[in-house]
């Protein structure tokens, strides 16, 4: 098995790098100028665990191997974090980066082993993806602290986390204002009116034929640029934000719903006709179910558009709260940790919003080929 051999070679290279990092000082104390090597004990524990893994990977069925790999990587990843916390930002030296390079190879290998080890697809995906996510944050932390990146450019995750904990009430208030008053309102009005309009237009094929190409052209338009106009029309309150979102979400829903309502094929429609079914029957029994996958596609697009619309709209007006306001105000005060904390909230709520719609989609359109595995 040449692939397995190549993998083992990578294991060895990673291990070698991790061990050889002990030759050079990992951090240099900025005050005394003396070098400090990585705690030998941590490295030794880690090395032992990794060795164990590379031996165990011959027996892939064993659950000990992934457990040891995870423990080893966690122990190994914690070492530089502890070290940097002790000596402070910017103290990282050559040894640390050799160590990080070695660990990178080992993390990659661990993800590879994990992705072949566990049969249950969903579990494997979540596990591997979480390893990747945690690794991403880890690099962010090590690099920003190790190189003493100014927090104006990129604050370390720990600093963002501290800010989130300290200002949880402020962040919650912003979120409530932006999400519940603007996003949900605009999203609902825009999606609903887009859908209803599509239902009406579908009855007139002549109009539908003209609207489909026009609708696609309109969806290319940067509608977000209407935000300043909406603020002049509707004032600085939530209604102008909701109006921007309504406009942004209307066309994707119109185009998708129209395509969905027309997606039932000739044979299915002929079947309905052979039963002598009237429009309501035809609509509820055939057209609506056929349109659902398209409608959900639009809802997913709209969920991201709605978040973007609300935040961008808040850049312009001068409300005193809201996530967009918080971002632009904090940039003005160079409070980058607050900016990132707000972005983290936005990202989290955006993902949750998207996730909820996906869950609903799975419940309602489970029969669609794209959801069958």
């Amino acid at each position, binding site marked *: 098995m040449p692939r397995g051999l190549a993998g083992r070679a990578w294991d060895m290279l990673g291990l070698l790098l991790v061990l050889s990092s002990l030759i050079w000082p990992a951090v240099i104390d900025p005050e005394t100028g003396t070098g400090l090597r990585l705690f030998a004990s941590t490295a030794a524990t880690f090395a032992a665990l990794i060795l164990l893994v590379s031996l165990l990977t011959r027996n892939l069925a064993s659950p000990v191997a992934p457990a040891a790999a995870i423990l080893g990587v966690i122990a190994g990843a914690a070492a530089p974090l502890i070290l940097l916390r002790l000596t402070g930002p910017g103290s990282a030296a050559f040894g640390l980066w050799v160590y990080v390079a070695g660990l990178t190879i080992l993390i990659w290998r661990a993800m590879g082993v994990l992705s072949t080890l566990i049969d249950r697809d969903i579990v494997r995906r979540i596990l591997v993806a979480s390893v990747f996510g945690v690794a991403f944050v880890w690099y962010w932390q090590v690099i920003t602290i190790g190189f003493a990146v100014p927090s104006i450019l990129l604050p370390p995750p720990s600093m963002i986390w501290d800010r989130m904990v300290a200002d949880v009430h402020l962040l919650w208030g912003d979120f409530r204002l932006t999400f519940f008053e603007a996003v949900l309102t605009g999203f609902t009005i825009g999606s609903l009116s887009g859908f209803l309009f599509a239902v009406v237009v579908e009855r007139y094929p002549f109009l539908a034929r003209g609207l489909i190409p026009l609708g696609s052209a309109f969806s290319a338009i940067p509608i977000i640029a209407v935000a300043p106009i909406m603020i002049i029309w509707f004032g600085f309150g939530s209604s102008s934000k909701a109006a921007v979102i309504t406009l942004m979400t209307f066309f994707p829903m119109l185009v998708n719903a129209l395509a969905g309502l027309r997606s039932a094929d000739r044979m299915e429609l002929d079947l309905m*006709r052979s039963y002598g079914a009237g429009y309501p029957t035809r609509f509820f029994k055939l057209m609506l179910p056929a349109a659902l996958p398209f409608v959900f596609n639009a809802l997913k697009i709209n969920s991201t558009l709605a978040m973007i619309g609300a935040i961008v709209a808040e850049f312009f007006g001068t409300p005193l709260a809201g996530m967009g306001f918080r971002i632009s105000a904090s940039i003005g005060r160079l409070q980058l940790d607050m900016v990132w904390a707000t972005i983290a909230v936005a990202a989290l709520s955006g993902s949750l919003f998207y996730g909820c719609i996906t869950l609903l989609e799975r419940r309602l359109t489970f029969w669609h080929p794209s959801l069958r595995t």
Partner: protein
Amino acid sequence: MTTAAVAGAPVARAIPRTPSRLASILTVLFGLVVIWYVAALPMNAGQLTRQYARIDPDRTFTFNEKLFATWTVRRPMLPTPDMILGDFWKTSTGAPITSKRNLMFHVGVTALATTTGFLAGALLGIALAIGIVHLRTLDASLMPWLIASQTVPILAIAPMLLAVLGALSVSSLVAKAAISMYLCFFPVTVSMVKGLRSPDRLSLDLMRTYSATQAQLFVKLRWPASIPFLFASLKVAIALGLVGAMVAELSTGGQAGLGGRLLNASYNGDMLHMWTALVTSSILAIVLVAAVSRIERLVLTGMGSRPPDQNA
């Protein structure tokens, strides 16, 4: 029976070849313009009343006097299409093309940022898709985060990203293009992953019977099979790229570009200029998408694909 027959009628007559699609498009467009003019009446009435009040506070105006004046009022709330066209013509011919007063100068600035970001984003998207299709580990680890990355309202980061890149003294073109790129790459990646995986079992087995190498499999099968997917996503991507460039311009405080022009007009409360900028950006969007479509047509025809069905 009769109701069923009537209800079924539009289906039975579905998609006759005539009247043509163009007629439908023109009808819908005409309808939109009519609605626009009608909407301008109430929207501009208030402004008109204030304008009249300044001229002669005592006189009251008849309905008829007010009716058509709303379509010519100065500083309207909703400018009519003819006002916008007039402003468009005036601002794009009134000054030399290199001047900041010329609308076309700003179109050029925005288009440059959009296409730069678009090209970079497309390349990044393709590279990521190739990695995801070929490396199992990358597929399992990166793909879910890519999806999550787009649920992040990325435009929220725009002003900060610009501040950061500005602090690193990166030119504003690069900064704007970076935001465009971030928006562009995702649809390309998703579509290309699908496209590179689109060859069916038989086509793959065929390559296996020839003992083709991975590189040959890619060049002779996966890549050509993914081209239709690529162009479908490029059309979405370039529209997103324009959104990214404009939002970047809006959040830099409006030095140049259509976004900047929009922002300056909004500071002055100048609706007409705002609408002109908006309409111009819409035209730019449609032109950019049409350009990609044109290239798509050329490439796909060159690859021998069946000409598009007229009915579709």
